């Protein structure tokens, strides 16, 4: 499939992400093409542009356009206790080993609007570990981080959240952790106190702390192999000796440059353990 010359759209896409990098310092150059193409065409429709070149022209001259475009390039979707089996495995297999540390640091990379961070905090609270834990939750989307900080979610999602929480082995009532107001729920400040939300890019920033567990779920699917490898380098460097790495259920390290750096710990649930290098 290598004979075909790149299409006009592919060339435009390459130039556009290059322009974004130069002007706004957000690096989408190594994002997986298929999803990027889709998101860009949604953005083109939104801005009423007929080509990516036209979009690029506006982007270079109007900073507001980039702020809006960022919402298309980093679409925000998440759930509390998404994939309950993953959280059950953390609870049953990883937590017993985390108990041995006097203080715990956990990094949620690509935390979106915060659901994964609150899930982790609730799990740690239930396991009696929250008081000695600090959760770093990072993302590149400033709006998502603001919403994560607020910890306010649509009440309509609560039944699903509750079912997921129960299937994850949760042994308290989810309603202990939020208060309801109209069509919203707001998560408890006592969870919030143990979470630091901050702006951090896996594409351009470096390691900021040593942690015992990294949870980076459904973020690597948006990266190409090269950027995945950069992110995995960061995780390797951030993790303490024998630290844990959890990724999304459809992601794998099988063919990655890091297949040897992490050993399978809970295979089905995509939890790995750092191998001494």
């Amino acid at each position: 499939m290598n004979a075909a010359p790149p299409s006009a759209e592919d060339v435009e896409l390459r130039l556009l992400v290059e322009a974004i990098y130069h002007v706004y310092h957000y690096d989408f150059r190594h994002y997986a093409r298929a999803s990027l193409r889709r998101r860009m065409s949604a953005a083109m429709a939104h801005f009423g542009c007929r080509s990516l070149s036209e979009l690029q022209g506006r982007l270079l001259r109007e900073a507001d356009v980039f702020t809006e475009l960022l919402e298309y390039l980093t679409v925000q979707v998440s759930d509390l206790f998404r994939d309950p089996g993953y959280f059950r495995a953390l609870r049953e297999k990883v937590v017993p080993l985390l108990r041995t540390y006097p203080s715990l640091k956990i990094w949620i990379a690509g935390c979106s609007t915060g659901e994964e961070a609150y899930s982790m905090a609730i799990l740690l609270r239930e396991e009696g570990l929250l008081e000695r834990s600090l959760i770093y939750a990072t993302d590149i989307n400033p709006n998502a981080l603001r919403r994560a900080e607020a910890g306010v979610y649509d009440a309509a999602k609560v039944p699903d959240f509750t079912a997921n929480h129960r299937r994850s082995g949760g042994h308290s009532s989810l309603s202990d952790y939020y208060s309801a107001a109209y069509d919203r729920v707001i998560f408890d400040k006592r969870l919030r106190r143990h979470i630091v939300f901050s702006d951090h890019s896996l594409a351009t920033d470096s390691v900021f702390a040593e942690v015992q567990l990294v949870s980076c779920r459904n973020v690597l699917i948006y990266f190409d192999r090269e950027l995945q490898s950069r992110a995995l380098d960061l995780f390797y460097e951030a993790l303490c000796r024998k630290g844990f790495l959890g990724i999304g259920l459809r992601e794998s390290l099988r063919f990655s440059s890091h297949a040897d750096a992490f050993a399978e710990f809970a295979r089905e649930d995509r939890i790995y353990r750092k191998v001494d290098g």
Partner: protein
Amino acid sequence: MAAPMPGRPVAAVAIGASTGGVEALLQLLPALGGESAVSVFAVLHLPRERSSLLAEIFAPRCRLPVRDVQDKDPVLPGSIYFAPPDYHLLVDDGPQLALSMDPPVEHSRPSVSVLFESAAAVYGPRLLGVLLTGAGSDGASGLQAVQRAGGVTVVQQPADARMPQMPEAALACMTPDHVLTLEEIMSLFQALPCEACA
């Protein structure tokens, strides 16, 4: 009747269906010969629990292997891939598989249109897009993208479909190369000229 031919060899087949789709695919996919080298991608709208059973249902009945889907796995010839529950399935350059957790499109995740559009960008004229039975309108815009990229397009005859809405939605906005009954699509699959076998 004589099998209607796509006209030229294809490298890949992308199929979308909703209500009635499992039954339809149980007729179609076993029709593909074991020596066929096409890669087959399928999006079926199903509740989460059922969609994780797809491989179990289809593997014993198909002559082509039904493969597990992991993000970035290389696409193999002569293989069948089902979109996993709660993710969009896309084809990326390589070709390789790509998954996304982007919000539902046309109320669906996985979405037929997302698969069709991505496969059209990668395979162009070497793609056969097939839209089958289903409620809703997912797949119509994707099939247009397949056509724009020069691919061959097939829509199941609405009267032949368990649910006619999806085929009708496509027919309302485009003229596909073929409008066929399931029976006819089966013969098309049996005689499918593929690049590597040509």
